């Protein structure tokens, strides 16, 4: 059993970190610039993001490697730097994390299996290349996130499970359909995700991004219906972004998100952090709420 899951099995509630993409933009990342390239060109800024979350009380921080697979990096002419950029990403978060955990972030490739756009082998190789870099840089776990396709998620899990000694986590992204069901854009429901992800080798599963904290309650309930024991990790966005005067705002405040923590714990969440629009203040408040509930 890995160290993070071990703590969960002991009954601990853990706090993860918040957004990376929106944080990088605040620090000056321009639209169209490659975020992972900042691991080489702006190492202080990247380390500072991880450090901000550690100071805010997070038990684990992600890495700046969400789009660090060869398919995405190729778009910036960086397809040959997959290992280097991911290793550096993990090193930078490791430096800030101290004795806290580092979760190597792995996002989707943007390629589609069902149409024959890419083969399973090509996807596997791409994820393998990325996770090897993350492990070499010191990641404790691989966090496969924002997945919408079950097959791609399973391939990524297998690539991490079979090629690294890291713990493997996977979270998918769900929206609400016209009839009020949770589904990924590829049509997967939280309940449908549970067994395939566990069978592929995930130690912890859950949801990230999406339309805010409140939806996570229903998503966890669905996961728990299918499996009462698997550790559950949530990284919700701070709501659906609102566009004002040339800037995007995420509407959910730290207090609003933290207020839902007791309910999320009641339905069975184990780790709570944030996605797009969440800040160190959000993470701080999540930690405060955990203290109030005596769950450290």
């Amino acid at each position: 059993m890995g160290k993070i899951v071990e703590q969960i099995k002991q009954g601990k509630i853990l706090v993860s970190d918040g957004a990376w993409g929106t944080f990088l933009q605040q620090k000056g990342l321009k639209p169209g610039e490659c975020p992972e390239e900042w691991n080489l060109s702006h190492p202080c800024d990247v380390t500072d993001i991880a450090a901000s979350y550690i100071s805010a009380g997070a038990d684990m921080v992600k890495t700046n490697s969400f789009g660090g697979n060869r398919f995405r990096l190729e778009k910036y002419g960086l397809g040959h730097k997959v290992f280097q950029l991911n290793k550096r990403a993990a090193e930078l978060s490791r430096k800030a994390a101290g004795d806290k955990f580092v979760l190597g972030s792995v996002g989707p490739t943007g390629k589609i299996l069902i149409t024959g756009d890419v083969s399973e082998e090509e996807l596997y190789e791409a994820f393998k290349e990325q996770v090897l870099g993350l492990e070499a840089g010191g990641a404790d776990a691989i966090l496969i996130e924002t997945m919408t396709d079950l097959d791609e998620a399973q391939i990524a899990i297998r690539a991490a499970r079979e090629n690294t000694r890291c713990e493997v986590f996977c979270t998918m992204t769900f929206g609400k359909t016209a009839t009020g069901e949770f589904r990924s854009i590829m049509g997967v429901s939280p309940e449908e995700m549970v067994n395939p992800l566990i069978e592929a080798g995930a130690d912890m599963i859950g949801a990230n991004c999406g339309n805010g904290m409140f939806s996570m309650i229903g998503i966890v309930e669905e996961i728990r219906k299918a499996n009462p024991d698997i550790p559950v990790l949530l990284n919700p966005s701070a709501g659906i972004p609102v566009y004002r005067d040339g800037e995007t705002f995420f509407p959910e405040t730290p207090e609003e998100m933290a207020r839902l923590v007791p309910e999320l714990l009641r339905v069975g969440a184990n780790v709570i952090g944030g996605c797009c629009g969440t800040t160190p203040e959000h993470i701080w408040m999540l930690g405060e709420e955990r203290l109030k509930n005596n769950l450290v």
Partner: protein
Amino acid sequence: MKEILQKISECIEMGKINREAPFPVEMKGQDGVDELTQQALMEGISTQEILSQALMPGMENVGIKFRENKVFVPQVLMSAKAMSKALVHLKPYFLSGQVTQKGTFIIGTVEGDFHDIGKSLVSMMVEGNGWEVIDLGTNVKAETFIEALKKHQNAILGLSALLTTTMMSMERITKAIRAEIPDAIIVVGGAPVNQDFCDRIGANAYAADPQGLVEYLNSVVR
């Protein structure tokens, strides 16, 4: 309606490309759009009929189901792929002028955004509705859109964005196009976009889903 056209329409809706195609499982071993379209042409059915009575209704059905969340992205992609297969056989007739397309639609994902799934999906749906589609790809600059609009007079333009950060880029591009071509028809779409945003940046219309765009386009030309 002729039975074969009905069959093509069903194959498009189900995403059945050809006989060998493994998807969908329940149609294994049956003829797909590829075989049936060739057969229809051999039987002397006009390309116009195939387009309007098989391709368009097939794509329309899947577009409506997608809007109602009865099917999801994979199904629409497979339908679009099946439709493209039929278009391969019909293209020579388009070129010879036997079929007139409804108009030209130019589409691209705005500068700074490399996401292409949504944009390609929309592009295929519009093509399947009988439009000529010019897909400028992803990370497209204002100048490229302006150039394309000048080359294809009367074309309608679609701008796509997936990231909240590239909404700014959408605003900038819309304004740049407006300054150069005041009467351009600009439609916007993508996950973070809504009607309010569309109104603010001065675009002509917002489409919440591909079928919504198709309906808007048809309302503009007819």
